[in-house]
């Protein structure tokens, strides 16, 4: 468990020092006024994708001994990815932060973001409540 905490600290530092928590950087990207966020995504994927592929091809095991496997997403009718993605995107655009940065911003002293996290928990709970009635 300590290792996950340490990786979390690293990620929190990367989010803040890399300005991924910056409202300005997010709005810059969403208004198509700069490449910064897109370059971060592209370089993150340039590192992660080949390593994921290699781990899968080698049938590698994790340090805990489990076979490494990334469960495939079920496509279904795909409604959840379009509609869920769109609703998340609307929230992302008006808050200027996605879930990871919300937590990092609380640490960075923007206390009111704790209210946004709480509202997000309520949103997730509401999804859990409505789930049987929603198209997926």
């Amino acid at each position, binding site marked *: 468990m300590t290792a996950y905490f340490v990786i979390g600290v690293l990620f929190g*530092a990367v989010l803040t020092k890399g300005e991924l928590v910056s409202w300005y950087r997010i709005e810059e990207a*969403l*208004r198509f006024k700069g490449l910064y966020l897109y370059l971060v995504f592209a*370089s993150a994927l340039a590192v992660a994708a080949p390593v994921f592929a290699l781990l899968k091809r080698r049938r590698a095991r994790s340090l805990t001994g489990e076979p490494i496997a*990334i469960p495939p*997403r079920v496509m279904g009718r795909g409604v959840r990815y379009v509609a*869920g993605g769109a609703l998340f*995107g609307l929230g992302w655009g008006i808050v200027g932060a996605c879930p990871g940065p919300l937590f990092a911003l609380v640490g960075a002293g923007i206390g009111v973001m704790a209210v946004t996290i709480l509202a997000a928990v309520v949103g997730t709970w509401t999804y859990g409540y409505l789930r049987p009635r929603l198209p997926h």
Partner: protein
Amino acid sequence: MMDLLHRPWPWYVTGPLVGLVAVSLLVLGNKQFGVSQNLRHLCAAFVPADLTYFKYDWRRTGLWNLVFIVGVVVGGFIGGVLLANPHPVAITAAAVASLATLGITDFSRLVPRELFNWHVLLTLKGFVMIVGGGFLIGFGTAYAGGCTSGHGITGLADLQLPSLIAVISFFAAGAAASFFLLPLLVPR
């Protein structure tokens, strides 16, 4: 030396490190990088309310992730307070001009002070932005089954089509919100 520590990291340092976080979680314990799962774990831990979606062993599947997110808060303190960048964010001139049309002129911190403080919660616009926005983030990520990390990094790095659909959808909606909703919510 101090200046070097406080300076923001460029994209070619930040991006690969984000990728490395996803890789290390997988190598360490076969864990999938995805922050929004924690919102579900928090519901399962505190208010499961007998709903199927929250009926699982959150300690077994999610405790590592909750520990991870506590680390993110601490990392946010290190990066955002101890090593805070003393200079205004270096967004493009085009972005500065675009945000100026919203009346945003202070670029000195991580978020605009006039939008994110406790007082704005008492205004309708501020409440919609902070609480309404948060609700949409939580509802949308749960519905989509992931956010910028789970779909944007883990799913895309694994070349999963559903994640690509989700990413295109949330970027398009994010752009729409920034162009059309944000102007309505910024205090004037």
